[in-house]
């Protein structure tokens, strides 16, 4: 994973426009948040291999933190806090946001082939 370069990510995002694609979207603060801090809450959600089409895709951001929005016919897909990206061997776009010690906080991944179960 490397720090996000907006122009390169934008180009990759556009390669998926108006195609059937598979999306992995996730956010988490881990299963131990409340164990270590009584005032914290365990929250997380993920959806793996949602099959969608979007007509617009855009990455925006300031400094190291970025947001991605995907516009679908009847809705949106959104992720905030993205810091790193990569394209894997299958040509899938892998993006994630990490805290200062490398722990994943949010991820959005798009591919023309589904992600492993």
């Amino acid at each position: 994973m490397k720090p996000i370069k907006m122009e390169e990510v934008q180009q990759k995002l556009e390669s998926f426009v108006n195609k059937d694609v598979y999306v992995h979207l996730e956010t988490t603060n881990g299963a131990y948040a409340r164990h270590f801090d009584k005032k914290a809450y365990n929250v997380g959600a993920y959806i793996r291999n949602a099959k969608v089409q979007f007509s617009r895709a855009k990455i925006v951001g300031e400094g190291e933190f970025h947001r991605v929005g995907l516009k679908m016919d009847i809705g949106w897909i959104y992720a905030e806090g993205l810091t790193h990206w990569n394209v894997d061997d299958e040509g899938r776009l892998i993006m994630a946001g990490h805290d200062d010690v490398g722990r994943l906080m949010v991820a959005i991944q798009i591919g023309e082939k589904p992600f492993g179960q």
Partner: protein
Amino acid sequence: MEFNKHKHVVIIYPHPDDESFGASGTITYFREAGVPVTYLCGTLGEMGRNMGSPLFANRETLPEIRKQELLEVAKVLDIEVKMLGYRDKTLEFEDKDKVAEHLKSLLEEIAPSLVITHYPGYAVHPDHNALGAAAVEAVKRMDSDKRPELWAQAISNDRIEVLGKPDIVIDADPIFDKKVQAIKTHRSQAEAMIKRMEQASESSGENEFRKRMRYEGFYIWSFDD
């Protein structure tokens, strides 16, 4: 604690690294006493959020990385590992009955004298609680004359308040280097945590890592029949 009175120990935890953080001291003592140890590892920790520090993994590469770390730790601790193929964070949604039968069939094959798992309801992570519950159920379903002893590990902050002091406390201090080596073998998962511990040690002036990792406590499960 007479470690050599056991003939085979099976550890049942859901994540690669649970064995190192939770029981690598205990495992080391059993191995030193010549007792075989088999680790039934529920998942590959696919949904873990630690990606290395500095970062080297991502959501898609993590399962293979953690699998390799697990195989490596099997060499470090000199144990056999069997991967059960469930998916991280989903164990509590599986059919408990099926998971229990799956574990029971493995236990009947291995025929251990001792099973170590998480204490259901007191193990913080939903996977720990779910697999612990299935493991307790599996052992319970075994014929009472073939049934191994069961030790349950609790992690929750309220464990002593609710469950009392653990029946068995293993002090890993004499072999702590081995425990550290096992934990560090799970590089993707341990690096961030070790950094935090080093920072905490600097401010408290104590070895926080040793303090938190030294004792491994277990409750002996009683089956009423």
